[in-house]
């Protein structure tokens, strides 16, 4: 008998361990759900971790109001299937209340406003651990992120003051008012995620597969033509077969020319891709350390 797990089952076992650790160590955990494949994966793993019980924490969606409609439809049907509780933090409401001010200009994005709404939602729900689908391979500032990432009462991340993580031991102890961000799929790569979603036959939003869409090119990246993105006069809309490699707010999610119709097609595409998936994220391109700067302010 050969007692070894393949890499996907080992990653799965690690993530399930982390999810159960969160349920055991924290009083009010919450799972951040964006509708992207990574948060879909975390939700799927949570479903497996607590089976046959339901997921013992709610899902929180920070809604910028600038979504692809497919994302919301997918979210609602998944929540119903799981019998989970969904909480929505609305950026639009925060703007209406004057809590945050909308950016102006051609590259305006509500991505940055999400941070304030996220922090408020965590505070309102008195959540002490927020789980997310961030992975260390995504971006250089994330390569050093912990599974259990400590945040002070302002939700700030201090890269110099993170707790060392050894073996299977995760220290979630905290003072009143502090909380943790937890990243159960830290060790997965984009390719691992797709391979796993394929063998698990997880249903995904249609946006991840090639479809015909009106797009335009900006700074070398195709963006979806949407009422939420003002176009410059010279930017011309064309129709192309495209798909999303990540799904975020419509204003900053690049779409890629693709013919991939199935997860198997996507795996082939990803394993030969020459650009990182966040290469299509306009929010990371603002400065060389854009991600690190946002994380320090409490971004996911």
């Amino acid at each position, binding site marked *: 008998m050969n007692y070894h797990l*393949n*890499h996907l*089952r080992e990653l799965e076992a690690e993530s399930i361990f982390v999810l159960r650790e969160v349920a055991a160590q924290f009083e009010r955990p919450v799972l951040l759900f964006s509708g992207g494949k990574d948060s879909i994966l975390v939700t799927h793993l949570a479903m*497996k971790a607590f089976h*046959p019980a339901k997921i013992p924490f709610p899902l929180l969606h920070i809604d910028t109001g600038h979504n692809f409609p497919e994302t919301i439809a997918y979210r609602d049907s998944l929540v119903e299937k799981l019998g989970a509780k969904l909480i929505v933090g609305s950026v639009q409401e925060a703007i209406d209340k004057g809590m945050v001010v909308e950016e102006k200009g051609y590259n305006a994005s509500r991505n940055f406003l999400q941070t304030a709404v996220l922090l408020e939602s965590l505070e309102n729900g008195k959540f002490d651990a927020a789980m997310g689908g961030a992975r260390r391979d995504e971006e250089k500032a994330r390569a050093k992120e912990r599974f259990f990432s400590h945040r002070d009462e302002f939700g700030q991340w201090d*890269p*110099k003051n993170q707790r060392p993580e050894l*073996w299977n031991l995760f220290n979630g102890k905290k003072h009143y008012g502090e909380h943790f961000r937890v990243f159960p799929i830290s060790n997965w*790569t984009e390719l691992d995620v797709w391979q796993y979603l394929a063998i698990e036959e997880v249903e995904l939003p249609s946006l991840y597969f090639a479809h015909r869409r009106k797009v335009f090119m900006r700074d070398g990246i195709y963006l979806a033509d949407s009422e939420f993105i003002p176009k410059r006069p010279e930017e011309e809309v064309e129709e192309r077969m495209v798909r999303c490699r990540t799904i975020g707010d419509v204003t900053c999610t690049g779409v890629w020319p693709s013919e991939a119709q199935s997860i198997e097609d996507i795996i082939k595409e990803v394993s030969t891709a020459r650009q990182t998936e966040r290469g299509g994220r306009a929010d990371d391109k603002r400065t060389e350390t854009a991600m690190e700067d946002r994380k320090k302010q409490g971004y996911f």
Partner: protein
Amino acid sequence: MDFQNNELLRFSTAGSVDDGKSTLIGRLLYDSKSIFEDQYDAIKTTSERRGEENVNLALLTDGLKAEREQGITIDVAYRYFSTPKRKFIIADTPGHIQYTRNMVTGASTANVALILIDARNGIVEQTRRHAFIASLLQIPHLVVCINKMDLVDYSEEVYNRIKDEFSEFSYKLDVRDVHFIPMSALNGDNVVDKSKNMEWYGGGSLLYFLENVHIGSDHNLIDCRFPVQYVVRPYSDEYHDYRGYAGRIAGGVFKKGDKVMLLPSGFTSKIDKIVTYDGELEEAYPPMSVTLLLEDDLDLSRGDMIVRENNHPTITQDLEVMVCWFNDRPLQLRGKYALMHTTQEARCVIKEIRYKLNINTLHRDEEDKKIGMNDIARVVIRTTKPLFTDSYRRNRITGSLLFVDEGTNETVGAGMII
């Protein structure tokens, strides 16, 4: 799908900027085609801006702003790449003595440790330190990368001299499996492809080793240990009296029908079912996360342990521990700390500091009892309640623990049970 036979291998690297560690990792990523165009373009731009002649592959692994500015690595950074055979996780750590704690962290989960030696300098203090940490953390396989061979004319003599010298001192360490590879990370000799410049070397490249080293025996498959992590209680009509004990197998192979003993109660029962979302299993082994159902209705909770009746861990409140200290507040003799061990928590008092270890010379200093950040010492502790332990050497999961400061909640030390 063919990727389903891939195994996962974790390896740690320790080294300073000068010995070419970042270049080696950059080379592994680049030659195994794990670097994307946008990443490559970014480091190319930076290299040009700095006026460097070649694209500096080391820039790929320098993560945080402060590190890029100062040209140092201050934390553990995790990197990923895969080949058709295996997926690799690299725990990349700085090599200087003030980062011992980072090296210990990176080493804690590694199957393989890479130790870099600059062929021009041979074995230096840092080499001994890295080898010692690998042995202390019981990394099963050690690869000594004798780097910068291009600068010593690919000399077999130099390689042999370093190899002999290393073997002589590693004899005193507790390392089970050591390999030597002469290489030039800068030029790619013996990193991914076998070098044509060193025909005298009969072994394979580093990547060949990483893809083929046998890691099937790295887990303990003998001593059955199942720390209860979480109790699954659905509270639904369908699963009325369901009590599932969720956790990750820390050792041994558990089979359906096995007679088991529960700690701390000492009661015995049988495994009724091994449950996963994908269905029931006949057996479960490390590092699987499963849920166990027992035949008898017994009350177990987080921190308890399921073991076999004839093979149980040491049940004790008195422990001898090698500790690596992580905090700038020194370890306090007679100080009290919170302890995390498997899924169990307790408090402890430091009863005695036996000695501080000089990790460069392995000299045991019984006079200097000041244990500060990055120091390694042997201590005696007493816990508020019994822990279920194995020696770290026997099991890295049931033999390890963390010390947590009760005031700040920081993780202040890592312990390996002797």
